[in-house]
């Protein structure tokens, strides 16, 4: 369970609020989509909830644990897939998995079983001995996903996870998301593609310029009716700046 309330963040080097009084909660057993255009504040929000950034105001609670008060305990309950898989190029895939496993305190048996499972699913098993620097973008993404699941987290947070994945891998990823939600775990992911959100989410939030412009189920969103009745045009209307300003 992830509860964000009143998160506000202005970067030191910028004048505008990247995230402005944002509140969202993700329940156990649901897939929650976080939808918004580029620069809307999705990554910033995710960084605040994973403890990477300290928000100027507001709080993030993971399974009831305040991230600011007990960051270690909160972080243990999160599996995080960053939007930047270009990290740790100098490590071998297995070394990276061991690093993440050790930091989260995953037993040898668990990490072997999960690595084997997800690496097989994503087809990167044969590359586990290779250096991450030699991986393709999609392979790196798959490795990040595998590593984020090593400790079987209660809350799975993914920042733009579909980017760079081929259809087969995207399908596998969606299957894992569904399976986790079905097992009573929370899944929170960001995307700027309405279609992905539409197919996957139990509930979703649309964010624009750091503010939530919609939260609810897909059915509730559909009830709002876009210009031509499609969700895509509805989404575009919601994040249309000129419309927002005249409103």
């Amino acid at each position: 369970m992830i509860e964000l309330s009143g998160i506000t963040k202005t970067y030191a080097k910028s004048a505008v609020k990247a995230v402005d009084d944002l509140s969202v909660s993700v329940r156990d057993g649901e897939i929650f989509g976080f939808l918004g255009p580029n620069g809307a504040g999705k990554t910033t929000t995710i960084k605040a909830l994973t403890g990477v950034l300290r928000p100027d105001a507001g709080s993030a609670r993971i399974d009831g644990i305040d991230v600011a008060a007990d960051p270690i305990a909160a972080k243990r309950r999160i599996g995080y897939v960053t939007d930047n898989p270009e990290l740790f190029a100098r490590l071998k895939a297995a070394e990276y998995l061991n690093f993440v496993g050790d930091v989260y305190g995953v037993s040898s048996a668990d990490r072997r079983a999960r690595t084997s499972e997800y690496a097989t699913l994503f087809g990167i098993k044969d590359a586990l001995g290779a250096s991450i620097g030699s991986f393709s973008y999609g392979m790196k993404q798959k490795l990040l996903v595998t590593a984020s699941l090593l400790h079987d987290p209660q809350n799975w947070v993914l920042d733009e996870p579909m980017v760079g994945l081929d259809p087969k891998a995207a399908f596998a990823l969606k299957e894992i998301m569904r399976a986790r939600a079905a097992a009573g775990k929370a899944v929170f992911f960001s995307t700027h593609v309405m279609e992905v959100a539409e197919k996957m989410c139990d509930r979703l939030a649309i964010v624009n310029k750091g503010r939530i412009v919609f939260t609810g189920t897909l059915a509730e969103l559909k009830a709002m009716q876009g210009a031509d009745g499609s969700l895509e045009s509805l989404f575009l209307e919601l994040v249309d700046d000129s419309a927002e300003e005249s409103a």
Partner: protein
Amino acid sequence: MSVFLSLSKLYVKSFYNLPGKKAPGSKATGKEIGKLVGVAALVVLVAGNLGYLFVVMNLNLYQGLAMVGMQGLLLLNAAVMATMLTLVVGFMTSLSTYYLNDMELQLLSMPIRPRALFGAKFVAVYVTEAALSMFFMVATMVVFGIKERPHPLFYAWGTLAGLLLPLPALAASYLIQIPLLTFARFLRNKKTIMIVGGVIGILFGLGLNIYFQRMMPPVADPAARAATFAGPGSAVSAMGRGYPPAMLAWRAMASPASASGLVAALMLLVACAAGPALVVLLLSGAYARSLVGFNEAHIRKLSKDGAEAFIARRLRRRRPFPTMVKREFDMMNREPMYLLNGPFIVVMLPLIMGIMYAVQKDALLADPDMAGVRALIDGGMGAALAGLVGAFMGSSTSIACTAVSRDAKALPFIKSLPIGPGAYLLAKLGHALIFGAVGSVVGVGLISLFLRLGAADALAGLAASLALSSLLNLAGLWLDTANPRLEWDNPIAAMKQNPNAVIMMLGAMGLLGGAGYLAFVWSMSAGEFALWFGLAPAAAFAALLAPFPRFGERRLAAMEG
């Protein structure tokens, strides 16, 4: 702007990691201005130190040569030194920047002529070379100018020589490297290049040392010393005579206002421009082609059964802290630029010193004139020297004072992990301290061998060395936590253009020099030295360490990844 110019600008910027233009409307804050002033002061300080060193060196040489009326040779020496210095530095720089990063592959996909690409790279490397060479020439010109009052044209030719002499040296470096990297595919790999570059660096260091040893026998007479070093019969003179650009530069500066001086200067211009022109004209295409394949890595694919066995064998639990320390090691040692500039020092310096020792035998201390020195060494200075050299080696790896900067890209991810910022920083400290210990042992060991110290002296030195280097490493880490360099495109910037590394190098020299001075004026025995310079730094270390994790926690939280 022409493609060549804008490419040159791009390369110079990413080499030296210059900040881009300020966004319009944003004002420089007081803190930024303070930072700028601090960095400027630092640059002045370093340049001043180096300049002072060069000037003193030239002055000594001048005085010696003037006694035998051969002061003109000072200029030939300057030309040869500028050439040699830039040849070696140029070779290493051009090699280590031959393939900068994947940005270059993207450049290859653009409609850029190979000549513009290579020319721009050449210009970027040349900038450092020219600065280095000018530095040396200016030092010589200052000494010679004050002493001899030459014609004003002397300065013009001297400046010209300073700017031109690196050109053939750099052209020669590429003349070797481009064919080499075109034909030897296995060399097209950053790691291999790192090893080759390191070996060349060691060989050069050794060569230079042996050269100085041979050239400077311990004689008291400055004239004789100068004559053996730069006189007509010396290697420098011989080299200068055999190398036309140095000869031409010498002639132009020696008779600046004459027609022959002008002719020499013009010939120098032609001679020095020819090399780069030819290399750019003939080898640009080969250079561009040789860039392809640099980012290829050897991938070992596992078979189906092999993968299962691999997982069972390799995936194994360890405690988090050692894992984090291991990550620090891997991060440092697998990045060629880091390895060369950091831990390599612990290997390279000892090798050079070991060879020096081998060349020198005990000629120096066996000399009866040196009896006083021997007594001093046995009276405690030996232990002090060993301790200070060990501490310097243990703290000159730049591991600690660049630790946070080097990790800039991974910081956001690291901060999402369930590890305390304190533990994360202590892993960095642990990494630095391990190298500090290795450096201490190696440094103290070498000096002990070199000076034939007894076990007690060596141990006293080691105690002080461990304490001093630990303190310096912690101070360095503190500095890089307080003020890391987080924005860079090129990992080199996190290390080489990191003000913290320079501050710590100077700080270490200051602290260790001061310690040595105190040990000397108070004529400390080995035991006293170990007591004072072991306990005081150890106490300071403990006092700094206690509040460090909390400080680090606050600092890391404030960094916006």
